[in-house]
C-alpha cells in the first residue's frame, strides 16, 4: 500500500456545495485539483426498469421524477416519442400550451440556477430572492396542473387540462413581475465586480472539444456554437414563434451565465407570444382506454431542449400495453461525468461548486 501524495477531498454526497446527491472525488495539491472523478448512483432508482413494468401512461408518474429541477421536458420528450410511435396528432392549441409549460419550467429552473450560481459563490441574497420568486411560477403550475413540482400534465396526444383565460392573465402578470425582478438579479450578479472576477476565465470548456465531449445546451452556446434543439429540429410550435438563441464567446462560467441571462428574457418573450397566438380548439386527443392502450411496434427517438441542454428519449415498443424499453439521456449525463472530469483538473477547489452549477449538473438525470 502506497499512500497517495495528493489529499483526497470528498465533495459529496453529503455536502452543501454539491448540486444534488452525487460525489466528486478530488485529488488536490495545494488548492488545485489534480484529478477529479465523478461517482454517481446515489440516486439510482432503476427508472428504466420500472417503466418496463408499467403501462404506457403509468410511466408518466415516474418520468417526471427523472430530473427534479425541471420535470416537464421529460414528460414532453417521452410523449413525443410515443406520439411518433402511435402516429398520434397533437392539436395546435395543445402544442401552444406545451410550449408555455416548457418555458415556464425553463424559467423556474433558471431561477434555481440563479440561486445555485450565486450561492456557490457566496451571494446568498440573490438565491433567497430568486427561489422565493420561483414560487410564483410554481403557483401557476399548481393552478394549471394541481402539482407544484411534479405535474404529469403533458400526455401523448395533448395535455391533461385546458388553460383558462384567467390563468393566461396570471401568467402575463407573472411575466411582467419576473422581467422586473430579473433586472434586480442581474444588477446583483452581473454588475458585481467580484462576481465577474470569479466567473471570468474559470471552468473553460474548449471550443474545439465541446461537441465531442457531449456538451449541449447553454454550455455549448457559451463557447459560441449556436446549437439549440428548438431551432435545429423544431418541435411543437417553436418554428412559429419568434425568438433568439443567444450565444457568447469564451466558454467560461461568465459566458454561460450571459447565455442564461439572455435566455431568461427569451423565455418570457416566448410565453407572451404563445399566449397571444394560442388558437382555440381541442387541448387533448383522446387515447383509448389508458389501461389497454397498445402502441404499435417500433422504435422512436425524440429530443427536446431543456434548460441544461438537449434531452433525448429512446422508446421501444413491442406492440404490447407496456413500453419494451425506454432510455433517457439528459444533458447532465455528459456534463456531470465526462465534461466535469475533463475540465476540473487545474481548477481551484473554491471554484468547483461554481463550475458544477454553471454546467447544470443534475445527478438524478445521470443515473436515473
Amino acid at each position: 500500500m502506497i499512500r497517495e501524495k495528493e489529499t483526497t477531498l470528498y465533495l459529496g454526497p453529503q455536502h452543501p456545495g454539491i448540486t444534488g446527491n452525487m460525489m466528486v472525488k478530488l485529488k488536490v495539491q495545494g488548492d488545485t485539483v489534480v484529478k477529479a472523478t465523478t461517482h454517481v448512483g446515489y440516486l439510482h432508482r432503476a427508472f428504466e426498469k420500472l417503466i418496463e413494468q408499467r403501462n404506457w401512461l403509468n410511466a408518466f408518474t415516474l418520468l417526471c421524477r427523472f430530473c427534479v429541477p425541471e420535470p416537464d421536458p421529460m414528460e414532453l420528450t417521452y410523449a413525443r416519442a410515443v406520439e411518433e410511435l402511435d402516429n398520434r396528432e397533437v392539436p395546435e392549441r395543445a402544442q401552444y400550451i406545451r410550449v408555455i409549460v416548457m418555458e415556464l419550467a425553463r424559467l423556474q429552473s433558471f431561477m434555481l440556477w440563479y440561486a445555485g450560481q450565486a450561492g456557490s459563490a457566496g451571494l446568498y441574497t440573490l438565491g433567497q430572492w430568486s427561489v422565493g420568486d420561483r414560487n410564483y411560477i410554481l403557483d401557476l403550475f399548481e393552478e394549471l396542473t394541481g402539482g407544484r413540482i411534479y405535474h404529469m400534465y403533458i400526455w401523448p396526444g395533448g395535455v391533461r387540462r385546458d388553460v383558462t383565460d384567467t390563468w393566461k392573465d396570471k401568467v402575463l402578470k407573472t411575466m411582467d413581475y419576473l422581467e422586473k425582478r430579473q433586472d434586480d438579479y442581474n444588477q446583483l450578479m452581473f454588475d458585481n465586480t467580484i462576481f465577474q472576477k470569479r466567473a471570468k476565465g474559470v471552468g473553460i470548456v474548449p471550443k474545439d472539444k465541446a461537441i465531442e465531449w457531449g456538451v449541449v445546451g447553454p454550455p455549448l452556446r457559451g463557447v459560441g456554437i449556436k446549437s439549440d434543439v428548438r431551432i435545429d429540429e423544431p418541435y411543437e410550435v417553436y418554428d412559429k414563434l419568434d425568438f433568439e438563441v443567444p450565444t457568447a464567446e469564451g466558454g467560461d462560467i461568465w459566458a454561460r451565465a450571459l447565455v442564461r441571462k439572455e435566455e431568461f428574457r427569451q423565455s418570457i418573450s416566448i410565453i407572451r407570444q404563445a399566449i397571444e397566438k394560442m388558437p382555440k380548439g381541442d387541448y387533448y386527443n383522446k387515447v383509448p382506454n389508458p389501461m389497454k392502450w397498445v402502441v404499435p411496434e417500433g422504435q422512436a427517438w425524440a429530443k427536446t431542449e431543456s434548460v441544461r441542454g438537449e434531452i433525448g428519449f429512446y422508446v421501444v415498443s413491442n406492440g404490447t400495453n407496456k413500453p419494451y424499453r425506454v432510455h433517457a439521456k439528459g444533458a447532465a449525463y455528459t456534463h456531470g461525468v465526462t465534461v466535469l472530469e475533463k475540465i476540473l483538473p487545474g481548477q481551484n477547489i473554491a471554484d468547483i461548486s461554481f463550475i458544477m452549477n454553471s454546467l447544470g449538473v443534475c445527478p438524478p438525470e445521470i443515473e436515473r
Partner: protein
Amino acid sequence: MEDLGLKIFGAILTTILGFTVGMTYGGIVRKLTARVQNRYGPPFYQNFLDLLKLQVKKTNIAHGFMGHMAPVWIIIAAVTVLLFIPILNGNLWFPNMSFHGDLIFLLYMMVFGSLGMALGAGQSGNPNSAIGVSRGLSQMVGFEIPFVLSLVALMIQYETTSVQELTQIQHETGVWNAISNPFAFLAALFASLGMFRYSPFDIVGAPAELASGPVSEFGGKYLGTMMSGGAIFAFIKLTLYVHLFLGGAGNPDNTGIIATLLGLGVLLIKTFTLYMVPVFYGWINPRYRTEQAIQYFWRWPTALGIIGVIWAVYS
C-alpha cells in the same frame, strides 16, 4: 488590595456585557439579513437558543487534546482582549486593564484565539479544516497589513500606544480620529471587512467547498463555546474600532449610573452602526477567492494605510 473585588466584579460584568451584546448583534444581523432576503427571519434571541441547545447536547465529540483545547484558547483570547480594552472611557463600573496592555499586545493577543482554533481544527484530521485554516491564515496576513498601518499611523500621530490614551485624547479634543486621520480610518475600515469574515471575505468557511471549514468537526459544547468566543470577539473588534477612531464612549469626569448607562447607549449605537458596514457589504457581494482577497487588501487599503502614516508624520 481593596479594589481587587471591584476589579473581579468589573471583569465579570465586562465579560457578560461583551457576550450579551455580541450574541444579540449576531441575532439582529440574522434578522436583518432575513429582511433583506424578503424573509421574516428568526427572533433576535435566536443565537442564544442555538448556543443553549449546543451546550445541552447529550454527546460531544472531540478529536483529542487540542480539539478539546481549541474553544478554551478562543475564550482565553476573547476574554483577555476584552478585559484589556476600555469599554467605557474611565468608568469605574468597567475597571478595565487597558493601562496594563497596549495596542501591540492586543494585536498579538487577538491572534492567540485564531491559532488555538487552527490547532484544534488541525487535530481533527479533516482535510476541509486544514484547508480552511490555510485560507484563514493567508487571509489574515492580507488584512493585518492595512490594519497595522492604520494603528501605526494613530500611534505616531498621538505618540501613544495605549487605547485608553487614544480615547482620552479624542475625548479631550473632541475630534474623532476618523476625522483627524481619515486615511488610517478608511484603511482600518477596509481591514475590518476581512476581520468580520462576512462576504466577500468568507472563503475560510465557504460551505460550497469546505462544508463549514475549520469548525467542520466541532459540535455540541465545543461549537457552543466557540460561538460565545466569536460573539465576544465581534464586540471586541467593534469596541476597539469605536475607541480608536470614533471618539469612544463614556465620560471619565462623570461616572454616575445615568452617565454610565448613557455611555453604554452611545457605545451600542456606535458599535452597531459600525457593524452594519461589513454586514451591508456582505449582503450584496459574493466571496473572493483567497488570493483575490489578499490582493484586495494589499492594494487600496494598504495604500490608504501608507498615506495615513505619512499624514500622521506630517501633521
